[in-house]
């Protein structure tokens, strides 16, 4: 059974519809990427799953239960974490406070400490900079902080929106290595990426969206070998 399943989702902002009957599913412990040109509705798909924007029709289930109509904080509580695009952190809060906020729904202090230690082993650099303000870190460090924050509740699955956007090549590699490491640890991951080739290489399966509709789907390797996908989205 799929861990996350979208069936015929229509969604949009206000009156403008962005998604037209989008369907996708993510199996447990899978890495799935969503690629497509700008305006394909990739980020919108994440936002509708998290309950941020207008929902027009279709079904979304997580662990077999409906998650339509819930607020983002409630969906997080069901074990679905989200790293928004643009490495957004709380600028006026320290690294430690940022991570503390990530664990807001967790009341057990011991579990918070354990999660903090876990995040610090994933990102030793964050451990060194616990007292630094989020807003004063480099772009790559902020992306790590945003990802670490999303891991503080130890979710069953996380969705990461454009993790490599605007990062230097060194950090891009680090981000992809991290996703692989998390996948090996058994986390289910869905990622939206503009760096489509790299994303498909590390993914079990991928979906190609275009103008808010499903276009192609397949294993990472199938999509990498598909002539149309190569020509249109992978630059030849």
């Amino acid at each position, binding site marked *: 059974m799929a861990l996350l399943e979208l069936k015929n989702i229509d969604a949009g902002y206000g009156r403008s519809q962005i998604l037209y009957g989008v369907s996708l599913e993510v199996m447990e412990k899978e890495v799935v990427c969503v690629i497509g040109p700008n305006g394909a509705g990739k980020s919108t798909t994440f936002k509708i799953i*998290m309950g*941020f924007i207008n929902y027009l029709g279709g079904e979304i289930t997580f662990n077999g239960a409906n998650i339509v109509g819930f*607020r*983002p*904080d*409630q969906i*997080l*509580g069901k074990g679905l*974490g*989200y*790293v*928004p695009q643009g490495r*957004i*952190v*709380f*600028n*006026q*809060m320290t690294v430690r*406070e940022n991570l*503390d*906020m*990530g664990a*807001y*729904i967790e009341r057990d202090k011991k579990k918070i400490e354990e999660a903090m230690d876990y995040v610090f082993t994933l990102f030793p650099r964050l451990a060194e900079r616990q007292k630094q303000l989020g807003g004063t870190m480099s772009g790559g460090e902020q992306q790590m902080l945003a990802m670490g*924050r*999303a891991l503080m*509740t130890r979710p069953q699955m996380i969705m990461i929106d454009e993790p490599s956007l605007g990062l230097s090549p060194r950090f891009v590699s680090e981000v992809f290595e991290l996703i692989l490491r998390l996948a090996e640890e058994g986390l289910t991951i869905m990622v939206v990426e503009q760096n489509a080739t790299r994303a498909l290489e590390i993914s079990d399966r991928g979906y190609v969206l275009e103008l808010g509709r499903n276009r192609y789907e397949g294993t990472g390797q199938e999509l990498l070998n598909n002539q149309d996908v190569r020509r249109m989205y992978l630059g030849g």
Partner: protein
Amino acid sequence: MLAGFLVIAYSLPFAIGIYTENVFFDRQWLADLATVVLNGVMQGGVYAMFAVGLTMIFGVMRIINVAHGEMVMLGAYLSWMSFFWLGFDPLLAMVFTLPIAFGLGWMIQKFLLNAVVGGPELTPLLMTFGLGLAMIYAVEAVFTTDFKSIPYAPDSFQLTETIVVGKSRLISFVMALVISVGVFMFLKKHRIGKAIRATSQNADVAMVCGINIYGIYMVTSGISAALAVAGGVLVSIQFGFNPETGIIYTLQAFAIIVLGGRGHYIGAMIGGVMLAVMESLISFMLPNGTALVEIAAYGLMIFVLLIRPRGLMGPKTD
């Protein structure tokens, strides 16, 4: 540029005072000046405390709450009722008046403002405007427009040989300080306080952190209303008040948060003291100064907006 402007602004009362021969520089005059500045600082502490409530709502929800001063006015009446009807010391009565205020702010947020927050900015503004007027007329219906006052600690306190301060003013200042420090500590250390700061920095990310921002909005409005009512209690033991007094406090709180920087708590404290010291310097040194106090205070606000729209401590990106 701002520093230069402030030096000029605060020198101006002295210059006019010298010109109009209200300034003497003898021992007695200097003692009077010290008294006036001290009174200004103490008054500023009280203003700053309730201005923090206004800046919190703005910071967290981007709502301009023009009913804030009416909540201060309501606090003054709650204080009056607890004193004359129930026979409680107004300060001790804060044990129940502040929770009442918190509950009121919570309900206003839950049933009115939560429905319109995040939409067009004008809607919540107009809603608080209507709410403020409704509060004025409701209080007027019960208490009429007569001025009321509370005889509380009317005697003075001899600080040094020459400097004397009103006891009620000193008590108010100390209370305002205690409450402000309490709120700061709550925002800095408490789980919910941190969530309030997180929400004001980025509501979307706060939501994905699992923070129910509508719950945070209700707590914020509750704290804001409690700060306003506390302000009302503290001014009620120093000055007379009537149902229309609140408007002045709304304007004062606005001037303070513009001076200090919108959404900035320490800035509000500094702005409060700056505004009150300016007011007392003017009423002390200018002939017919008390009539000019308001003009100078809002003049200060307008010029700060012109020179540095983000205020003293406001963030650069706005």
